[in-house]
Structures are given as structure tokens and as C-alpha cells.
């Protein structure tokens, strides 16, 4: 078994119109910029995939990464906790014009819903958002005298992930706080595609240091000098 694939184009080949796509990262930290841009390349060349639902903590910054996907009109809906950034104009303008839908989810609930999707837990209760506008329409229940909101799992057709080391079985480590949503999203998608900074041989990752076991990974591609969204934006980059 060898989950390595050679090119970014191959990595994003299977994603169809209307797919739900989880994209790792918190802001630019842990964002799989190269996979996202490969997906944009495919869209520009073929008109597909479009009408995507994208799940991420944010909704893009500047004119690269998720913001560039939105700018190209590939995204029908964002599911996120914080659609603001240093330069959120791409999302903001489309949202205010009614051109993109938004499901706003508290950050911890977003993380837990994704984990639940990966862990086979269809619903859970959380105190978060009880009594607020974001709980509207959701079932509530009381446990031990305190009130909770019922939340459903989140799953995706595809997850685009950035990791640090990966081996041919798909075992992964992450770099510092770039871990964030990535290990959770690996668990919650039908197909999990990972860009890693370095592919190591089997046995090259200490089994105790593995953060994402390979069972959660479908394919990985090496991107040895990955771009950092924050630096791209500071340089005023746009994509394509």
C-alpha cells in the first residue's frame, strides 16, 4: 500500500461539482495553499468543481487560498466560525450581495461537529450558543439542571489538508499551531488528500509521534516548500 501521488493536479482530480470540501487551517496557519490553488487551476481549465460548500474556520483573506476560490465563483456556501480577516473583502462583498451563503458556527462547536463526523457520533449536546441567535431552530435539552443545544455531525466529500511529515501509509505530523483543524478534518471526509512538506519512508515517524494515523488519509503529495498565506497576503499576492 502506497498512498503517495505525484502531482497536485492528481490530488484534486476527483472533486465534483456541488461537493462539500473541508479545508484545514486557522487563517493561514495550516492552510493547504498549493492544494487550493491546484483546485482553482482545475476550475479555470474545466469549469469544475463549482457550487462547492467549503468548511473552514474562516472565509479567506486577501486574494489567495479560499478567498481566491470565492473570487473565482467556485463556492456556493461557507460553513465557518469567523468570516473576517485582515482583508475579508472577497467574501464580504459576495455575502452582502447575496451571492454566497453562510452557516456561522461557534468555533468549538465547529471543531466538535467535525470530530463527531469522523467519530461516528451523529449528534451531541453542548452548552455553547444556548440562548443565542445561533441556537435558533436547534433542539435543546436539560442535563443535571443545565441547558444544552443539540448539534449534528459535519462530514465532507473531500478534505484538503496540510501536514508536515507523511509516510507512504499516510501517517502524519503537523508543524506547531498549523495542526488546528487538520487532524479533525482528516477523520471526517470520505476522501482525505494531504500536502506534506516532506515524505519520509515507512518507519520514519515515531509511532508515538504520529498525530494523524494513516487510516484517516487517502492520498498524499509532497510540497516541499509550501507557501504561507500570511506572507502571500503581506506581499499583496493574488491567485491565479
Amino acid at each position, binding site marked *: 500500500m502506497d498512498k503517495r501521488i505525484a502531482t497536485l493536479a492528481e490530488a484534486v482530480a476527483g472533486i465534483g461539482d456541488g461537493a462539500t470540501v473541508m479545508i484545514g487551517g486557522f487563517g493561514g496557519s495550516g492552510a493547504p495553499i498549493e492544494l487550493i490553488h491546484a483546485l482553482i487551476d482545475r476550475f479555470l481549465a474545466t469549469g469544475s468543481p463549482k457550487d462547492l460548500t467549503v468548511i473552514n474556520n474562516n472565509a479567506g483573506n486577501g486574494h489567495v487560498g479560499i478567498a481566491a476560490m470565492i473570487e473565482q465563483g467556485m463556492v456556493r456556501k461557507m460553513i465557518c466560525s469567523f468570516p473576517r480577516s485582515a482583508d475579508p473583502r472577497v467574501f464580504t462583498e459576495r455575502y452582502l450581495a447575496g451571492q454566497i451563503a453562510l452557516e456561522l458556527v461557534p468555533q468549538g462547536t465547529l471543531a466538535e461537529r467535525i470530530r463527531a463526523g*469522523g467519530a461516528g457520533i451523529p449528534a451531541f449536546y453542548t452548552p455553547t450558543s444556548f440562548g443565542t441567535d445561533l441556537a435558533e431552530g436547534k433542539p435543546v435539552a436539560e442535563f443535571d439542571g443545565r441547558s444544552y443545544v443539540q448539534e449534528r455531525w459535519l462530514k465532507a466529500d473531500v478534505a484538503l489538508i496540510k501536514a508536515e511529515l507523511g509516510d507512504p501509509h499516510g501517517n502524519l505530523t503537523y508543524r506547531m499551531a498549523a495542526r488546528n483543524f487538520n487532524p479533525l478534518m482528516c*477523520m471526517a471526509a470520505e476522501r482525505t488528500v494531504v500536502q506534506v512538506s516532506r515524505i519520509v519512508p*515507512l518507519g520514519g515517524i515515531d509511532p508515538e509521534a504520529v498525530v494523524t494515523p*494513516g487510516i484517516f488519509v487517502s492520498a498524499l503529495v509532497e510540497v516541499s516548500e509550501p507557501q504561507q498565506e500570511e506572507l502571500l497576503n503581506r506581499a499583496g499576492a493574488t491567485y491565479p
Partner: protein
Amino acid sequence: MTLTKLSNAQIAWRAAQDIADGAYVNLGIGFPEMVAKFQPPGRQAIFHTENGVLDFGEAPPEGQEDWDLINAGKKAVTLKPGSAFFHHADSFAMVRGGHLDVAILGAYQVAQTGDLANWSTGPKGVPAVGGAMDLVHGAKRVAVITEHVTKDGKPKLVERCTLPLTGVGCVTRVYTSLAVIDIEGGRFVLREKLPALSLDELQSLTGAALLLQGDVGDLIVPEL
């Protein structure tokens, strides 16, 4: 009946033939663990154990056990390159979350509805369930390996389980000492049987109707 039924090793061998290269597999404690020995050449499954190891290998030589490196049956195992450790919640996320390709379990009874009874023989004694009830609700394919009948000759494949259930409608294939049987649409569908065994004989040893769909293959297994 002088029929030579399959040995446990032969049942395990047959089940192993259906495991694809690269499949993630959980083998129940005891008899199912034997399946790992019979991976076809050129194929390599990755074995998961509930207590938190992926891609473990066979038992170490006696005296070289490390008792922090065990499987769900609490037997010492070894590591392969590419293995990983994780805690129990992550381990059962793998199980319940549908990430395993195959789980192979033992059975007291399997019903034509796919119901499985394999954890309790009734109210006597100390009940113990372990991971059985989780495993039946996670793997993409839940298969059972079992003797076709009990020691006193009663059918283990039944219309309805009389023993406490492990899970409802979860089993899709049964490998027995006499046959390979799929569960589809609430019916037992016969796929393979020992060549020397007539359909009538097999039906008489089975507690629910055996449906035929297309050819029934010969269940041919090497001496082991």
C-alpha cells in the same frame, strides 16, 4: 455424517482471501485473530486493535514480550514500520466512524437479518462486552467466522437470534465450516459450499432458508 468440515484455520484462510491489499482490518479476540496468518501473497492488510495500535505484527518470541505492546486480547504483539499509537477515543473513532474496511468476528448466532449474538450466552455468570458492540457498527463490512453448527449440533445461522444481541442488522457475510453465505435483504444467500455437501444437507444444518442467486461456488480450501 462423515463429512470433513473445515478446520478453524481453514475457515480463517477462506475469510483472509476476501481481504484486499491495503485494507484496514479489525480481528475479534480469539479465533478471528487467526485470519492474520493467511494473508494472500502480495497483499498486506493493516490491522487495528481497539486498545490503540494500528499496523501491529505477530507475537514476539516468548520471553521478548513487552507488556505495554499488546492487542485487544491482551496478547503481546510487535510493531511494523508505519505503525501508530493513539488513545481509546481515537481508536473507537476509527471503529464507529466507518474507517475500518473489514471487521471479522466470532459468533454464537447470526440471524438472516444480519443480527449478531456474540457477547453473552445468557444471564448467568459475569457479563463482559468489550469492543464487540462498537465493532459491529463501524466497519464498512462486518463478517463472521464460525462453526456452522454448535457443539451439540444446533444451527448457529438462524431466523432470529435467541441469545442477547451484539448488534442489529450488522453482518453481511458469514464464513462457516461448511459454506460462505451472504446476508442480503434479510435473507441468507448461499455463495459457496463444500463440494461434498448437498444443498439439502446444508439446509438441514441451517436454521433459516438458504436462498440461491446464480451459481453456488465450491468452497475449496488448502490443507493447513
